[in-house]
């Protein structure tokens, strides 16, 4: 089990996932036998475990119950990394290109949000998106009142006559947009590349078990390629993912259209090595620090972030979040 010493080679691994448009390939790969195929190839066993509650899945990873987990860049930074768990992002799957949005019930533009109560999952990417949005409209978080709202209940909460504004992600976002009189006034397509969806693994584990990384990359790019196909096979794969997410195939396709998938591993490697990643991560980091998420840290530099090419943000001695292109690169090179 995963409670063993992470620095030792092992043969069985647990990867946690939760429902989100960009992560549905994982359970599909499990069901379609792609996981087993790649795991067998490397002589290991990979369990892909669903956790309904996103935060709980990340917490379980932080607690060492999972060897890897699907997570956003901001949460990877503020939960495991800020908690001292050395974490490597080995697959940069996609960025949110409209999958997160700010909704208003009365008012056509973001400026109408001033003074309103906003329902959102506090301290999540929604919070970050709102802050970025307010920034573009010349406001700050002080100009609104945030109310922490559980992601599972946010649709219901927003349909209450009380609710005026909300920030959410898909699939909830689509359901909320469908409510009468609701307008989306800002979304993540306006801050491309800032909200990333990653697969992260424990750094010590991946160091000791590079085969795990290879298998995961193999699984991921085979599944992505399959779902991108325009034929019946591709449609069948997407329909199965929709079903797993509890959505209709149409709704799922719509969610995918606002998800910028790095289908080609080369593109993923390029995005990860691009300098914009550092700027984006700096924004995310500074926001997180300002919200007190680096508990007890004296400055935003307390949590170090490592990038390809030995570049680092913050304290280079305390790097706990690393963007690691090794396995994406192998995929790009066809060496898996």
């Amino acid at each position, binding site marked *: 089990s995963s409670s063993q010493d992470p620095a030792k080679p092992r043969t069985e691994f647990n990867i946690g996932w939760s429902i989100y448009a960009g992560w549905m390939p994982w359970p599909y790969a499990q069901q379609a036998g792609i996981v087993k195929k790649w795991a067998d190839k490397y002589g290991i066993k990979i369990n892909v475990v669903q*956790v309904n*509650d996103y935060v709980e899945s990340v917490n*379980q990873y932080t607690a060492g119950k999972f060897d890897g987990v699907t997570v956003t860049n901001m949460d990877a930074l503020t939960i495991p990394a800020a908690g001292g768990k050395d974490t490597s992002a080995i697959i940069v799957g996609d960025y949110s290109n409209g999958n997160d949005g700010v909704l208003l019930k009365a008012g056509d533009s973001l400026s109408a949000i001033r003074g309103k109560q906003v329902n959102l999952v506090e301290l999540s990417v929604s919070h970050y998106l709102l802050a970025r949005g307010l920034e573009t409209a010349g406001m700050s978080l002080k100009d609104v009142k945030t109310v922490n709202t559980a992601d599972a209940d946010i649709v219901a909460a927003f349909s209450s006559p009380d609710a005026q504004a909300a920030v959410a992600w898909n699939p909830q976002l689509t*359901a909320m947009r469908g409510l009468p009189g609701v307008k989306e006034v800002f979304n993540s397509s306006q801050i491309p590349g800032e909200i990333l969806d990653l697969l992260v693994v424990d750094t010590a584990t991946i160091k000791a078990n590079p085969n795990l990384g290879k298998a995961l990359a193999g699984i991921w790019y085979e599944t992505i390629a399959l779902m991108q196909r325009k034929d019946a096979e591709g449609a069948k794969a997407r329909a199965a993912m929709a*079903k797993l997410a*509890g959505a209709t195939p149409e709704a799922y396709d719509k969610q995918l259209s606002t998800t910028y998938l790095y289908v080609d591993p080369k593109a993923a490697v390029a995005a990860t090595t691009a300098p914009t990643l550092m700027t984006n991560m700096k924004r995310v980091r500074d926001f997180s620090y300002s919200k007190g998420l680096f508990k007890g840290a004296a400055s935003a530099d307390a949590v170090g972030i490592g990038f390809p090419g030995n570049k680092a943000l913050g304290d280079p001695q305390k790097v706990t979040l690393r963007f690691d292109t090794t396995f994406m690169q192998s995929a790009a090179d066809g060496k898996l």
Partner: protein
Amino acid sequence: MRWVNRQPRRGDRLLLGALPILLLVVLYLFLAAQRHALNPADKILPLPSAMASGLSALLFTPDPLSGQLVFWSDTLASLQRLGIGLGISTLVALIVGLVLGVLPPVRATLGPLVTGIAVIPPIALLPILFIALGLGETAKIALIVIGISPVMVRDIAAHVGALPREQIIKAQTLGANSWQIMIRIALPQAMPRLLQAVRLSLGPAWVFLISAEAIASDIGLGYRIFLVRRYLSMDVIIPYVAWIALLAIVMDLALTYLSERFFPWAHGANH
């Protein structure tokens, strides 16, 4: 005739009992129709037709991957967890409740601890629970047990502790030691109360089951409700909740029947 003395007959009882429930259903239909008149796409109070179609997919179309009928496999999974959770809780309540109720030194020692456990909201400690017990069935069952058994333990302990002192004395004059008092005097008299405690715990047990399934699961009634909650699919949620209520009411009736069947002395009119 005074109202205290009016005992409705069996047939009348059924009718009377059905009345307010029917009224509620009618009220719901009225409100739903009203909302749909304003917004035909309303999702919050779906019409029966929408519920029927929402449910039929789960009821009759097998899941393409697993080949199972979703509704039934959800029901089975949830009932299994609930059954094991309730079973363990009942056993714990009986044993711990009996020991606490009968033996004052044990009560003094463990009473405060049980109170403490009873008042700690397990939901707040979910991360620890899942970390300690993993994300499998154990944690879900444990949440049910931790959620309902302390209340049941305290109830049984209080009931046993309130047995007339004379009975305990009398049993001792008949040669009974503490253990014998426990199994021959306290245990049988705690049984009807235990069944009553299980009945009262059915509601909370479902709440904890659904909470557990909402966090980490891939099957179960609570999982399905949680899954479709993101889309505000009340057309699935409402039939699922009604189904849960029906299951719970059947269990409630079964427990009442069991109690009357096996402990007639606790139910007979006494004079």
